């Protein structure tokens, strides 16, 4: 086997002892620029000569477009162009999973806020006037807002070509559920509902398209997957992909939302630039952002589960309905993820799970941290509490009897051969929170303020669902002065993958300080690294960086061993020096070694490519290989409920994570805290409200409320179980989404404990809590 074999390199570093940089609280390299206000985001690159793009939006939930009249708008001095579907030079089709979605409405509009036309003008005010002057004639059509109604009606079709309002179906069938329920001594059946959530990334969507830079169209934009953004923009423009370049500077938060919307914003700005020949800038206002971009899906989940007296789960029968809104977008992938995670992280011998993504005339659903999983884990974990209660078992003791471990099989019959630390995480965090005592003690509360403690346990498959191909790729080169430049398609959107994890990996392997490492991120000039989503930036994204840097290290170790006359195995790289482990006096300075390498013809650049090995998945039965590994998260929440006002206060939160190697504890902690609070907002206060026409009535930060610094609980230091993943960089799995996923379940279970009545829908606003208290009396 070659010393540059990727499997060998991954394995070597998986088992490395005495890491110097990885695993430490290294300050991320972008912290300074951000602290002084000198980190540039898309809007900060705005050119003086740029034209402004404004969007004409549909006022109707469902209508046929009869005609456009753009003459009045074009007569306004300063309006340069009005662009509608017919002006698109390439293909007006941007659906991710299904080909159901135009970039600019064509023939029909399907939700209030759908983009019908673009007005391009010399300045913002003129573009705004232009938008008001575009006349579109519509014929209103009957519309559907409720997914349960929509899935049963064929007289109103949101997409006629499909012949039904069900966009997509999924299924998992394992064992025999009837047999499973026959073996069950207790059975629980409930319907759960979750709602839409807006990402509220602080930076609104933005793109600046510049024609003719480097002989191609360059788009500076806020997105999560530069290569996909390029492919969509070039398809719309009718250009080869290589003629479009994407630069994604610092992104002011993404959380999945810019994975869906980013490419569309880029394509619209590119269209304006291409058709006018001028740099063109499009930025959404907050109100437009909330009205237009995809949301976390609303769900209806019917869940039946059974267990035997010995505390063993016997069967689950689950029906998941996702309100997919006007377009499928990534809905099918989201539904798949919810479907294969429906059991929660437990062994279930018999399972039937059916999923339906249903079209309605509302803003469509899309990627959001957790990707279909928070809703289903809320349902699954509520069921676990109810079963435990019926069995007379403590909720955590019951979970531990069924928890996944090495050798377990999932509901897709995938055998988990390694990296399953969830049981240990659950045990440890239960002890840390003094769970058993509090669970008993709080049950006795009777006054106005009732305390409760609840647990949420979640699993989250790493990489893409089922056998969908996934890979890592990066390019690393050592410069003549010994500094290192790395290229990755991963973006920096707050999570710090390229500005902390990737920097640390290179610094560790080459023994140079982080300040000598520059990671160029978010560019299509890097190899396609896949998207910065699915908690994959540091983990999957880091594999390529590790392999490339490890290849360079092997080459330099060989050269150094020749120079120092020792074996390559004893060569160490540390603090800018390369030396023999046996005799540190035998050394060569890093800088001098690089000079030697250049004079002796050692190649100082390398690509790191890794194609994740996956197994087969049968889509019809939903059985087979689902993910290369899972990350696991446990959150215990302590709440206090005011039974007179209905106000829920989350007092304390205990997180525990089993996500393999922790590359940077400080950064991981930041991810867990941020995700926990985003999940808390979802569980308690965030709520998108639609009127009778499917219009969002609260599209601003006055009426769409997110947690402030006053709303956050005391979050305890996370417990880490480092259940190494054999293909991860140093064994790391994904972290970014994890703490959000069990948060709604954890809070709902704590409130249910406090009120001694079951929460089945979110958010737990004071109104809903009071209603719950009233209905339980």
């Amino acid at each position, binding site marked *: 086997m070659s010393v540059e074999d990727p499997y060998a390199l991954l394995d070597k570093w998986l088992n490395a002892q005495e890491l110097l940089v990885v695993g430490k609280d290294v300050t991320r390299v972008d912290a300074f620029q951000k602290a002084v206000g000198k980190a540039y985001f898309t809007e900060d690159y705005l050119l003086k000569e740029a034209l402004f793009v404004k969007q004409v939006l549909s006022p109707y939930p469902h209508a046929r477009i009869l005609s456009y009249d753009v003459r009045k708008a074009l007569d306004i001095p300063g309006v340069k162009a009005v662009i509608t579907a017919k002006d698109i030079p390439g293909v007006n089709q941007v659906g991710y999973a299904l080909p159901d979605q135009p970039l600019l409405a064509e023939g029909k509009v399907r939700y209030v806020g759908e983009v019908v036309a673009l007005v391009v003008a010399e300045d913002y005010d003129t573009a705004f006037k232009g938008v008001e002057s575009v006349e579109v004639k519509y014929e209103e059509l009957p519309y559907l807002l409720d997914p349960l109604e929509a899935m049963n009606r064929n007289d109103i079709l949101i997409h006629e070509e499909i012949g039904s309002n069900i966009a997509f179906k999924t299924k998992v069938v394992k064992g025999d559920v009837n047999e499973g329920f026959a073996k069950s001594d207790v059975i629980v059946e409930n319907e759960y509902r979750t709602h839409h959530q807006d990402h509220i*990334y*602080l*930076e609104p969507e933005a793109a600046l398209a510049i024609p003719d830079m480097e002989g191609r169209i360059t788009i500076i934009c806020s997105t999560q997957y530069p290569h996909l953004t390029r492919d969509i923009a070039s398809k719309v423009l009718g250009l080869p992909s290589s003629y479009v370049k994407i630069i994604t500077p610092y992104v002011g938060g993404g959380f999945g939302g810019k994975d869906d919307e980013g490419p569309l914003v880029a394509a619209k700005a590119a269209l304006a630039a291409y058709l006018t020949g001028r740099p063109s800038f499009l930025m959404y206002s907050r109100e437009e952002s909330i009205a237009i971009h995809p949301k976390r899906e609303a769900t209806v989940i019917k869940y039946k589960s059974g267990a035997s007296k010995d505390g063993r789960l016997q069967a689950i029968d689950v029906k998941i309905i996702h309100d997919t809104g006007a377009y499928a977008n990534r809905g099918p992938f989201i539904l798949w993820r919810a479907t294969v995670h429906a059991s929660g992280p437990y062994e279930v011998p018999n399972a039937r799970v059916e999923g339906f993504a249903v079209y309605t005339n509302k803003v469509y659903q899309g990627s959001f941290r957790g990707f279909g999983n928070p809703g289903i884990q809320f349902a699954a974990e509520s069921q676990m509490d109810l079963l435990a209660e019926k069995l007379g078992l403590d909720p955590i003791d019951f979970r531990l009897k069924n928890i996944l471990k090495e050798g377990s099989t999932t509901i897709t019959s995938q055998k988990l051969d390694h990296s399953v630390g969830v049981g240990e995480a659950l045990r440890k965090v239960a002890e840390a929170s003094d769970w058993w005592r509090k669970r008993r003690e709080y049950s006795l509360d009777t006054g106005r303020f009732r305390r409760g403690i609840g647990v949420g346990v979640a699993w989250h498959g790493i990489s893409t669902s089922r056998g969908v191909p996934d890979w890592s790729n990066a390019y690393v080169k050592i410069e003549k002065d010994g500094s290192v430049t790395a290229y990755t398609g991963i973006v920096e959107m707050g999570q710090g993958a390229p500005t902390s994890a990737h920097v640390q990996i290179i610094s560790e392997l080459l023994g140079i300080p982080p300040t000598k490492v520059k990671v160029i991120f978010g560019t299509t000039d890097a190899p396609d690294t896949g998207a910065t989503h699915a908690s994959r930036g540091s983990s999957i994204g880091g594999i390529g960086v590790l392999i490339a840097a490890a290849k360079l290290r092997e080459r330099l170790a060989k050269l150094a061993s020749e120079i120092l006359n020792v074996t390559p195995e004893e060569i160490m790289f540390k603090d800018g020096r390369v030396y023999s482990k046996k005799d540190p006096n035998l050394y060569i300075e890093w800088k001098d070694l690089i000079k030697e390498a250049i004079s002796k013809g050692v190649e100082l650049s390398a690509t790191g490519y890794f194609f994740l090995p996956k197994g087969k998945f049968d889509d019809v039965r939903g059985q087979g290989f689902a993910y290369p590994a899972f990350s696991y998260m446990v959150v215990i929440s302590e709440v206090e409920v005011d039974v007179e006002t209905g106000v829920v206060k989350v007092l304390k939160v205990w997180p525990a994570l089993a996500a393999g190697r922790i590359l940077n504890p400080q950064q991981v902690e930041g991810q867990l805290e941020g995700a926990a609070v985003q999940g808390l907002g979802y569980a308690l206060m965030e709520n998108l409200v639609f009127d009778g026409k499917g219009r969002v009535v609260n599209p601003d930060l006055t009426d769409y409320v997110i947690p402030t*610094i006053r709303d956050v609980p005391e979050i305890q230091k996370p417990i880490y179980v480092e259940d190494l993943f054999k293909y991860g960089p140093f064994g790391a799995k994904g972290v970014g989404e994890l703490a959000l996923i069990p948060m709604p379940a954890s809070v709902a279970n704590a409130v249910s404990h406090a009120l001694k009545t079951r929460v089945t829908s979110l958010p737990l606003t004071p109104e809903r809590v009071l209603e719950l208290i009233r209905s339980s009396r």
Partner: protein
Amino acid sequence: MKRVVRFKLNGEYVEAEVEPNELLINLLRDKLHLTGTKYVCGIGECGACTVLIDGKPVLSCITLAVDVNGKEVVTVEGVSKDGLTPVQEALMEEGAIQCGYCLPGFVVMGEYLLKERMEVSEEELREALRGNLCRCTGYVNIVKAFKKAFEKRGLKS
């Protein structure tokens, strides 16, 4: 009708021609090229556009540019003119920096609080910062950083 405003910006006198309805955030970003101040909500709910006017925090997205005539304005760029402030240092050390979009607002508030008060309880701190939204950090490390900045200053004095 355009008007001329003259004011002190980050220690230097500047002059600009503005529309009567022009917002301060746009004057700062588009004409004076100080892009540290960020647009997020446009209606004064999030604090990302906070600047100091005559030493007091003001939301530049709901302030007219004509209103700063004859006044002194300090932005995030001005705050760190003479090196990092204790709040900036602490934010970096405590891992309180993620995407960074809300950060200019927090940094400006930090400058204000450090000048305004000798010490601050956690309750007062949270009250003072409740108008600054952050969607990445969950605020945990931001609170830690602000506390640390105040402690450090206490040691110096």
